[in-house]
Each structure stands twice: as C-alpha cells, then as structure tokens.
C-alpha cells in the first residue's frame, strides 16, 4: 500500500546527542517536505526537496539538515539536540502533476530533548 512513514514516532533524548528522524514514502513522489509543529500546533516549513540531490531551506530557520540520496527517503538530522528542538516533526510528499497539489503527510515524530 502506498504510504508515507516516519520513525521513530516518539523520541526522548538528552541534550547534545545526534539524532536522525527517518521519513520514507512509497508513492514515487519527487517532492518531499519537513514541517515543524510547535506545542501551540502551528506548522512551519523547515526543509523541502524537489528530487534526488535537491534540498532547500524552508520559511522557518532550522538547525537541522536534510539529505535526499534516494527518491523515497528524506531523513532529517540534528547534530546536537537542544531543548529548543523539542517539537513535533511532520514529513510530507507530493508529485509534480498539475492536477494534484495535495501533500500527503506522515504520522509525525514527537521529539523531546531533555
């Protein structure tokens, strides 16, 4: 079944640790996105990609980095986690067809940095 997956769903980690949040989609979409959802529920685009080897920063500045080596995989990395990184991270994807501008979202990763 075509879908978008995120792991882990929940992560509690200490300050200074390096973490990678995984996102994979089986829909063959070229475009992928990362959104950060703060405790007040507001969502902000932090990274996006148009395809393999393409990565761009979004509207909200983030200390995280992303990579896109394979079409289906778009991991997000924090080199040194801090309490200010505590948030919900949502991954999404969409395709290029003009008839479809819908973004499909993963279930999210809730990150807590202590």
């Amino acid at each position, binding site marked *: 079944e075509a879908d978008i997956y995120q792991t882990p769903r929940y992560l509690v980690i200490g300050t200074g640790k390096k973490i990678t949040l995984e996102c994979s989609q089986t829909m063959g979409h070229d475009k992928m996105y990362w959104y950060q959802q703060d405790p007040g529920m507001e969502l902000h685009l932090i990274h996006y990609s148009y395809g393999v080897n393409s990565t761009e920063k979004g509207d909200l500045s983030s200390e995280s980095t992303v990579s896109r080596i394979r079409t289906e995989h778009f991991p997000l990395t924090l080199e040194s986690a801090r309490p200010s990184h505590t948030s919900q991270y949502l991954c999404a994807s969409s395709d290029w067809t003009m008839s479809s*501008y819908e973004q499909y979202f993963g279930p999210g990763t809730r990150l807590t940095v202590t």
Partner: protein
Amino acid sequence: AQTVTQSQPEMSVQEAETVTLSCTYDTSESDYYLFWYKQPPSRQMILVIRQEAYKQQNATENRFSVNFQKAAKSFSLKISDSQLGDAAMYFCAYRSALASGGGADGLTFGKGTHLIIQP
C-alpha cells in the same frame, strides 16, 4: 509572503449539527490553491478538501463544503451533520501555484481550529 489566519482557536458543536470554520488569507498572487487539513488526536494530517483559486465553484466533498470568496480572501469550511469522528484540529493552508523554488512550493498554514463534537 502569504499569511493564513484562523480566528477561532476552538469551536464546539452538537453531534448532527452544522459548523463553519473560518479562514482568511493574504496574498498578492492571483493563482493559488487552498486546503483544509484535519489532524485527529492520532496526529496524522489528512486532506479534507481542496479549492483551486481559478475555479468559481465552491468545492464539496460529501459532508464538507467550502465558501470561497476570492475578493474577500476568505475560505471557510462547513461541516454538515457533524459526527464524533470529525473531532480534530483543522488547519487552513495556502499553496502558491508557482512551481518554483524559494519556499513557494510548501504549504503556509493557519494556527488551526480545535473542533469539539458534543454527543
């Protein structure tokens, strides 16, 4: 830059009744897309309804319909015959029709409206 405003942090409605969620947006573009997304307590965001700005006809999906007023930059969501499963956060979102870089391809979200369904 575009902005999306949802002025109702929380709405409550009796089961089987109708509720309308408000959304306004600000843009200088003439071609864009508007969406309503639903985020239930399980957290997976799902699309409820989509409206293309160039279409005058309001979009409808079963019990969900929109009132799109382009000149007023208003995009409200009406939920008819509310069901317990409709309880969720609802986000209004904007997406430029321009398929270029510079962040133009991501969604700009409102702050959300928490919809409560009372049995």
